[in-house]
């Protein structure tokens, strides 16, 4: 057992503190007392509240099974495939299972430039991924459009969907994408940015603006 290292969650109460509330005290305690003992509540859409501790245990589990959407837009996807292959071997971190259906995915890697024709599909795929979800923009084209400041290319996918991590490069090396995925795992562990249902989707905002005008 000495080789096992448990993650040190920031602000999580120690085991002894949590055990203080037990037996008769636990039965008599109000919900607020229990939540406070467990580190406060995390609000979910729909009014459900989860204690931070449970949420972090869930996040710890999720961080080792981030399944990206099997989705490549352009040449960056080749590097993404290289990361999935045996040389770089993404499966060491539980990420090898790229799901072809957005309903089974935990997020997407936007690999390559996105055309205006493709933009509605990207938004739709993003919206079909169940919460919580994390998005990684891979390569200069996905981040800013790169040199394609032309009629057909969206100048950065963050004008369409919320992006968590940007990986620059043209294309980024598989190691760079790996580091980006590590950053996503850190976010998942902290459950930061987890409930995207509460966030605004830029493409929807733009449509509302257009409708208002």
């Amino acid at each position, binding site marked *: 057992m000495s080789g096992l290292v448990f993650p040190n969650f920031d602000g999580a109460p120690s085991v002894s503190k949590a055990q203080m509330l037990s037996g008769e005290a636990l039965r008599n305690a109000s919900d607020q007392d229990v939540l406070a003992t467990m580190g406060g509540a995390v609000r979910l859409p729909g009014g459900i509240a989860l204690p931070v501790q449970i949420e972090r245990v869930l996040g710890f589990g999720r961080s080792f099974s981030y399944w990206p959407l099997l989705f490549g837009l352009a040449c960056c996807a080749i590097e993404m495939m290289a990361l999935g292959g045996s040389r770089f071997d993404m499966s060491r971190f539980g990420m090898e299972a790229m799901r072809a259906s957005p309903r089974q995915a935990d997020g997407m890697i936007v690999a390559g430039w996105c055309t*205006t*024709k493709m933009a509605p599909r990207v938004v739709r795929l993003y919206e079909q991924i169940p919460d919580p979800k994390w998005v990684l923009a891979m390569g200069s084209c996905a981040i800013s459009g790169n040199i394609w*400041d*032309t*009629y057909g*290319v969206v*100048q*950065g996918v963050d004008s369409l969907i919320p992006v968590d991590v940007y990986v620059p490069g043209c294309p980024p090396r598989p190691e760079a994408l790996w580091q980006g995925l590590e950053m996503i795992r850190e976010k998942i562990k902290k459950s930061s940015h987890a409930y995207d249902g509460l966030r605004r989707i*830029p493409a929807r905002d733009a449509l509302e603006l257009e409708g208002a005008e």
Partner: protein
Amino acid sequence: MSVAEIMEARFGSRLLETTTFRDDLTYSIAPDDWREVLEFCKESPDLAFDMLDCLIGDHLPERMEAPLQVVVHLVSHTYGHRLRIKVALPEGKTLRSLTDLWPSSNWDEREAWEMYGIYFTRHPHLRRLLTTDDFEGHPMRKDFPLQGTIGGPIRTKLKGKI
């Protein structure tokens, strides 16, 4: 009889220009002969061009009187020969669609119309193929601006809100 002999026997001086580059024969024709020449290429048993390899648009603004051009590559699987046909078009001149002769010209014509503004009459559905339906202009023309603003305003407007 070779392709050149058959074509020249049939059309003669209506073939405006003939070039051969690495055994690839090219004829330039007038827009009014377009349909007749291509129908002959398809129907003639000695030519039997059963495949339309590609149909390409082109914009040559230095040619003031006929800035647009359509190039058709034909292939015959029966005889193994090839032919290219070029037609120079003034602005606004339309061509008869080839979709009834070679269905593969469907998307090629859509692309030529979308990118260069070359209109094909009697095309089943001449819609935009590669750009969005509300796109304005023909982006592959030489006078189309290289740097566009599509996507740009969305990005700059919403950058602070993300």
